[in-house]
Structures are given as structure tokens and as C-alpha cells.
């Protein structure tokens, strides 16, 4: 066994690329551990956890590329070659010869070449400057980045108002504009409904349920989870409502959010009352109705009778069992909704994003009772890709729950669409099967319930995904609320 550690200055790749490089290097024959990552404090922590020597990376800065490999002597060379292959510049050149411009280095530069909408997903501390470039160029922004300070959010939205553009975000997960899905977005058909969403996965759930009923959309305008806070005051929500009201194709406007600040809620309701287009303001959350119910309201307003959302039953009979529900989510609103439904019947649900402060869990993300974790929470995504892209944290946790005798029901969300993992079932189905097997070896029947958010046209294949997960032993529901109720049904009333 031998170790090679190296810091490379002046090389920057985004974390998603480096995750793939890390995996490719770690997968080389004879390699025991490998990390290829920017030397952020978080990545250095991971480096140390992998058993590498902290002294070797003293003085590393987040702008250095950290490379560390441990393995058989001859494997290190193979790993090194693989690393170079992975880091080599792509074969497609940035410019194409005589006088063609090099790739733009800032949004300001890019927008001088054209563009009518900017999608920003740089790390939060760098997002403000890029967003200001766009706004000052008169271009609307979809700001996926999270961890943007609230003062900067307010400044961006005030500047946007001055320049008559829209800022969607920060922390805006999804948007659909002119038929184009931005960020995590489902492939949706055109139709009469325009949505303003303070919640990305909430909007994805509603639009996918509408899609199942054959109803399309004109646009989904995200505003960021904080837009309806007292501080931000609904600046983007109000602007987005106006944009939809001015859009002749939008026949029905939906404003979708968790219960906001009461004064802001009133402002939004007042504004909705003044729209020329019929509208529904749906604040979903504890005691407020769920996303599936809101969808039914929209369908009713459009004069359609909702059908029951599709589901794919588990391939075997399940009966109530003793133990706890463990929910592992990638979508924040889906997690909140599931907790609200479960807490009503099961009592306290421990969480990293708890409904009540008393139910909060520590950094180890463990609890003895019912537990739901939002892996998409800011604190868990700092320095790593979103769980909708990279499922590794959830996959580890599924394995852990499989061998935890207290876990009776595993509740998962799976979000399909552009931007999300290209084939989540390829990793989740085996993980589910393995967890069920390991539970079975200890004499437990681990029930698995999946909330599948997807449209019929999504690139991953909604139905194919559902069928593979069901075949692995899960029951799959297009309605997150239905999935949560199914999970609760499986433990409610049973002895602990």
C-alpha cells in the first residue's frame, strides 16, 4: 500500500466534474481510496476521513486542486494515468480558429454576445456579482445558487425592478420559460396554467400531477424559498404574477408557497385579487392542505374533475408493522409535506429541517424515532452536488437504514426531469433491494415507499422508472402526499 498526495495550483473544475473524476480514479484496480477535489475545508475534512495525512495539505487554498490516492504500488501509476485522462481538456475546442472569440469568463462578457435569460449556479458567495451583470444588461435571471445572503437577494430584486427584469431565486430549483426547462425541470406540455413558485419541488409536484391529468403550463416562474419572507416581502412573487397576468396565453395563475410571513401573505392575496387573470394562491403546509389537494383545486377551477394520481403498488402484500418511518428526501417541500402529514398521525418527526425546533437532530443526522432528512438542505449541499444529481449520501443512508432494526418503513422521493440524475433507478433499485435483503436476513420486512415526481415526457422515463423501483420492492406514488400516507398507514397503530 502506498499513498500519493498532490496539490495542483491554478486548476479549477466544478465539483460535479470532480466527483466523476474521483469516482473514476477510485474505481481503478488496486486503488483503496482516492479523492480529487478542490481543497475546500469540507473536502479536506473528507480527505482526512479517508485516512490521508493532514500535514500533506497544510497551506492548501480552495483554489488548489487536491489529488490523493492510496493503493497498491503499481495501481498508483494506473490511477495517475486515469486522472490525467479525466482532467484533459475536452476534445471540443472553445473557439474555432481565425478570430473566433475565446469562451467568455464572466456573465457580463457573455451577455455582450447576446442572450435573453441567464442561468446562474456558481457557489453562493460568487452569485451576486454574476447576477448583477445580467440585471444591468437587462436580462432576467434564474439563480439556482443557494447560500446567498438575504441583503444581496433584496438588492438583486430591487435592481431587477429598476431594470424591469425578473430574478428567479436565489435557491430557485426549477423554472420553465418559453417551453424551456431550467435547473431541475420536468418536460411539460404547453397549456393554460402559469405558476409562481416559492418552492421548486412543490412546483414540480403540482405540474407533474397536472401533467398526469393532461393539463399543461405556460410558465413556471420560481422566486426562491425566501421571497415571501418578511425581509424580502414577495418582491419577485409580485413581479412574476404581473408577468403571467400580462401573458395572453396564461388563463389561470397559481401562486405556490409554504405558509409565508402573514403580512406578505396578505400582500400576495391582495395582489392576486387585482389580477385580470383568474388565480389561486395556494399556501401548503401544516394544516393548510397538501400539494395534491392544491392540484385538485386547480383542476376544479379549470372545470376538470381530477382523477386519482397514478401509483405502482409494491409487488407483495404489506401489513402494518412495528418500528419507525425513515424519510430520505432530495426535495425540501416534499420532505415538509411528508412530515406535516406524518406528524398529524404519528406525533414528533425528527429532522434536519424540523417542523418544530424541539424535533431538530444533530449533525450526525440520527434519531431513535420517526425521522425525515432533507438532503437538499443548504447545510448538506455546501461543497457538494445536489442529491437530485448525486445520490451517494442517500444511497449510503438507505444501506444504513436497511440494517437498523428500528426502521420499519423507508420513504424516498425521486425527482425526474432535466438536470436531475439521468437514471436514478439504476442506483436506487439495487440499493432498495439490498436494504430489503439485509433487513430480511435479520427477520424484518422493510417496507419501501417512493414518491416519484415526473412527467410522462421526462427523459428518464416516468413509467419505466416507477416499474423498476416497484420491481425492487417499493410501492411508487406520483402523489407525494399519497406516498406519505401510505408510509404512515404501514406503522400507525402497530406496536413499537
Amino acid at each position, binding site marked *: 500500500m502506498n499513498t500519493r498526495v498532490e496539490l495542483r495550483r491554478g486548476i479549477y473544475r466544478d465539483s460535479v466534474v470532480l466527483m466523476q473524476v474521483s469516482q473514476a480514479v477510485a474505481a481503478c484496480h488496486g486503488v483503496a481510496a482516492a479523492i480529487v477535489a478542490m481543497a475546500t475545508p469540507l473536502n479536506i475534512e473528507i480527505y482526512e476521513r479517508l485516512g490521508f495525512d493532514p500535514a500533506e495539505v497544510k497551506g492548501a487554498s480552495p483554489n488548489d486542486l487536491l489529488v490523493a490516492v492510496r493503493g497498491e504500488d503499481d495501481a498508483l501509476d494506473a490511477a495517475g494515468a486515469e486522472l490525467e485522462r479525466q482532467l484533459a481538456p475536452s476534445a471540443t475546442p472553445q473557439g474555432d480558429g481565425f478570430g473566433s472569440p475565446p469562451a467568455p469568463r464572466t456573465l457580463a462578457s*457573455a451577455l455582450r454576445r447576446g442572450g435573453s*435569460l441567464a442561468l446562474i449556479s456558481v457557489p453562493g458567495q460568487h452569485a451576486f456579482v454574476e447576477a448583477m451583470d445580467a440585471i444591468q444588461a437587462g436580462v432576467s435571471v434564474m439563480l439556482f445558487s443557494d447560500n446567498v445572503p438575504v441583503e444581496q437577494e433584496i438588492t438583486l430584486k430591487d435592481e431587477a425592478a429598476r431594470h424591469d427584469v425578473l430574478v428567479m431565486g436565489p435557491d430557485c430549483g426549477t423554472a420553465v420559460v418559453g417551453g424551456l426547462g431550467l435547473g431541475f425541470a420536468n418536460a411539460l406540455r404547453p397549456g393554460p396554467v402559469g405558476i409562481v413558485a416559492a418552492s421548486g419541488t412543490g412546483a414540480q409536484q403540482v405540474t407533474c400531477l397536472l401533467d398526469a391529468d393532461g393539463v399543461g403550463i405556460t410558465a413556471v416562474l420560481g422566486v426562491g424559498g425566501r421571497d415571501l419572507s418578511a425581509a424580502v416581502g414577495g418582491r419577485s412573487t409580485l413581479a412574476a404574477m404581473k408577468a403571467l397576468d400580462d401573458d395572453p396565453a396564461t388563463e389561470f395563475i397559481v401562486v405556490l408557497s409554504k405558509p409565508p410571513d402573514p403580512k406578505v401573505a396578505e400582500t400576495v392575496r391582495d395582489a392576486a385579487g387585482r389580477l385580470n387573470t383568474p388565480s389561486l394562491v395556494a399556501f401548503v403546509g401544516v394544516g393548510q392542505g397538501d400539494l395534491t389537494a392544491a392540484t385538485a383545486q386547480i383542476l376544479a377551477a379549470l372545470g376538470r374533475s381530477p382523477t386519482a394520481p397514478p401509483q405502482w403498488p409494491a409487488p407483495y402484500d404489506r401489513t402494518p408493522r412495528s418500528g419507525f418511518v425513515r424519510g430520505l428526501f432530495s426535495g425540501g417541500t416534499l420532505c415538509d409535506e411528508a412530515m406535516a402529514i406524518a406528524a398529524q398521525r404519528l406525533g414528533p418527526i425528527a429532522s434536519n429541517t424540523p417542523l418544530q425546533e424541539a424535533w431538530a437532530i444533530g449533525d450526525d443526522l440520527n434519531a431513535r424515532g420517526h425521522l425525515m432528512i432533507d438532503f437538499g438542505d443548504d447545510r448538506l449541499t455546501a461543497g457538494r452536488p445536489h442529491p437530485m444529481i448525486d445520490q451517494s449520501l442517500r444511497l449510503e443512508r438507505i444501506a444504513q437504514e436497511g440494517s437498523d432494526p428500528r426502521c420499519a418503513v423507508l420513504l424516498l422521493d425521486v425527482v425526474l426531469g432535466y438536470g436531475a440524475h439521468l437514471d436514478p433507478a439504476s442506483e436506487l433499485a439495487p440499493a432498495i433491494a439490498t436494504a430489503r435483503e439485509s433487513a430480511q436476513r435479520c427477520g424484518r420486512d422493510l417496507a419501501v415507499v417512493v414518491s416519484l415526481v415526473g412527467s410522462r415526457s421526462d427523459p428518464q422515463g416516468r413509467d419505466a422508472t416507477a416499474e423498476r423501483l416497484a420491481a425492487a420492492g417499493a410501492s411508487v406514488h406520483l402523489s407525494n402526499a399519497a406516498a406519505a400516507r401510505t408510509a404512515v398507514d404501514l406503522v400507525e397503530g402497530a406496536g413499537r
Partner: protein
Amino acid sequence: MIRLDESPTMVTVGASLFADALTAQAAAPLEVQWTPPVPGSEADLALIAADLRTHAATAESVRRLTAANPRWVDVLPAGDVLGLGPREFLHAGPPVDWADASGPIRGALAGAMIYEGLASNFEEAGRIAAQGGISLAPCHSRSTVGPMAGVVSASMPLSVLEDEETGRRAYCTLNEGLGKVLRYGAYSREVIDRLRWLERTLGPLLGATLRKRGPVDVRSLIAQALQMGDECHNRNRAATSLLLREITPDMLESGARSEDIVAAFRFINGNDHFFLNLSMPACKVAADAARDIPGSTMVVAMARNGTEFGIQVSGTGDDWFTAPAPPVRGLYFAGYGPEDAGLDIGDSTITETNGIGGFAMAAAPAIVLFVGGEVSDALENTLRMYEITLTEHPFYKVPILGFRGTPTGIDTTLIVRSGVLPAVNTGIAGREPGVGQVGAGLVVPPMSVFADAVRALALRAVPRGAPGRSESRNQ
């Protein structure tokens, strides 16, 4: 407001998977090749971007920079136009004293002191200067620019450039030619004799010619020369030729002695860089017009003294941001090598500050080898500069780029964000006093001066909603 009825033209910055997702929807986004800014600058960049003044102030400095219309109006002694006293000397770059001065500056100061009759040799000049017997100031502080050592003394004739737009003036010495010359730190007898000829013959002849004929439109000459293979920093052959053609009849009519006129023709014709000492003050008068606009992030001076590389920025007044001068990468005259080279020196980077020189490299394929590259490198050099500049020059155009305006108006924040540094062409001075020029090449300015400027701009930024607090934040 955002258009909902048509598919947007997308630009993305950040995780490439979102660009890939757009490509999967046949949307073909333009992807920014983003890298993090200089470490530690994030908060400063955000403060500057949030300052309500930044955008308009910077735009105003760009407007003034490109609106300038510099014309060569006269040649007069420095003592007259700048009021320089007999013991006052100007030098290139940020402020420096004798103790820290580089070889070329010491040599040039000694030469100028001998020329002014303050000393009879280098040693004596050094003793006087070391004891504070002369006073030193940067050329830039007196509306002047000087190539290489840039030493100016009271008796030297200066070209007077006037901006027709603002009436503002800038000054520069007459170019002495190549080889053993004062600006490269040489101070031998022939150097002093040439200075004397410039003072007594060429200066008065050119001054009389200009006063008789009226101003020479320098902006127009630069614009034409860029289309004839000059970048007006390291290549001035076309511009010098154009200039001579322009003033020939007026020189003949000046009434001067015909042997003086012939000597003047021979001198200018034998010195391809004669025009450099007009392109520099033309750029200086434009850059000065853009100075002192609170909130502006645009660079108004880049200059070196062989010890330090320094910049000044419109929004930070007369403050210099400096770092050790970098070495020059380039080609050497036969018999010289990197071990003979002094560090980067001269005010000629005022040309890059105004969008020509290294920034117009694509216009000058003839010298790409001299500055260390192939023609495609020259194109790439210029194209890369658009990433750190605010506009395209309305008069200075590059034929090979489809007559696109040169990248003009360097933005400190764009440098710190993109990591792209200004491309600077320059000559290489010998490190020891008295040697002169040893080569020419390219220099990469130190990133820290731009990062320091960004820090200073952030300290002066006016926070939103609390304009009153700006006073206490000012340094």
C-alpha cells in the same frame, strides 16, 4: 419584463450539467467558462457591485476615455509647460526614491543631471541624488508620461497633446531613437549631445511647425496606423511614416535652416519609434479625462519604474496600487540575455490602458515573433482582452477582426473575477545604468495590484440604504 411567449436565448454560468440539460432540450446555451475570483475578493466584489454608483460611474469613465480627441499642438520646454525647476525631475512609474530606484532610472537621472549641469559624472550625480539634492515625482502626477525610465528635466522639450473635447493637456519628451539613449538608462556623451540637439534644434523646429500649421490629429494617425500593421506601442513604423508625411511641407515652410530640417527628417525617418512619444501622451490625455469618478472601477494608469509595477483607478483618485515589477519574457539583442535584463519599466503601458499596444496585438502581425508568438497568438491576445475591458474603441479598429474596435477600458473587477491579466508589450532595459535597451517582449502584470485596487474600491463603496455611512468607510 421577462418574455414568456418565446424560447429564451440562454447564457449559463456555473455547473455544466444545467447547460447540458439545456442542450438536451436543443437550446444551445452560451456557457461562461467560470473560475472563482482571486481568493478573498468575493466580499469586496459584492460590495462594489452593490454600490449604486458603480455601473454609471464606470460607464462615464469609459465614455470620457473614448470621447477624447488628442491633438499634437506644440513642443515647448518642460520648465515652461510644467513649471519644472532646475532640480526637479520626473520619472516613469509609481513613486520611487533614489535608494530604491532601478539601474535604468538611476542612469537616466544621472544623465539628466549631467545634461542640466548639476553633475559632471554618474558618481557625482548619485551622491547628490542620494543626499536629497534633487526632487523626484512620477510623470503621471504631472500630466506626463515617459517611456522606459521616463526621466524628464526642465530643459527637455515636451510634446504638448491637447484633448479637443476637454481642453486638457498631456506631455511627453521627444523620442531619442534606439540604442544608447537616456530612457534606457544610458548617460554617455553621445546621449547628452543628442538631448542637447533635441532641445536646441528639433524641439524648436517642431514647435514652430505646429504653431504654423495647426494641430496634428493624433487620434486619426493611430487609427490609420492600426490598419497598417502598428499597435502603437512596440511598433510605430507606419504611424511615424504617416506623421512625417503630414508635417513635411510645414517643416519646409517653417523658415528653419535647411540643414536642420534635413537632420530632423533623417532623425525621425531613422527612428521607427518616434511616434511612440505621441501615442503615449495621446493615451494619457484620454485616460486623465476619465480620472477621479467616484465609484468607477476603470484603470486610468498602469506604469512601472523598474522596481515596482503600479496602477491607478478612476474611483480611487491618486492612490497607487503597487507590487514588485515582474521580469519581461522576450527576445534579446545579440550579446544580451535574461541575466542582463532589468525589470519591467516605463509609462508606455498607458497605451494598453487606452486599448492599443498589447491590446491591439491582432493589428500588428509583423511583430508577433518579436513579442514571442505566432499570428494566432496575436489574435488570441486581443480577443482575450475583451474579457477584462468595458468597451470597444470607437476609433481604433482591428482589420483582421472585421474592424472590431480594440478592447478598451480595463476594469479591475473583471480582472480579479476572470483571472485574465492585461497583455502588455514592452521593451527590455539593461539592468545596469548606462547599458540601454537589450531586448523586447511581453510582460504579465502582478495580479495583486488589481486585487488591492478592488479592496480599496470596496472600502469606498457606498452601502445600499445607508449612504450616510459612506463617510466613515472612506479611508
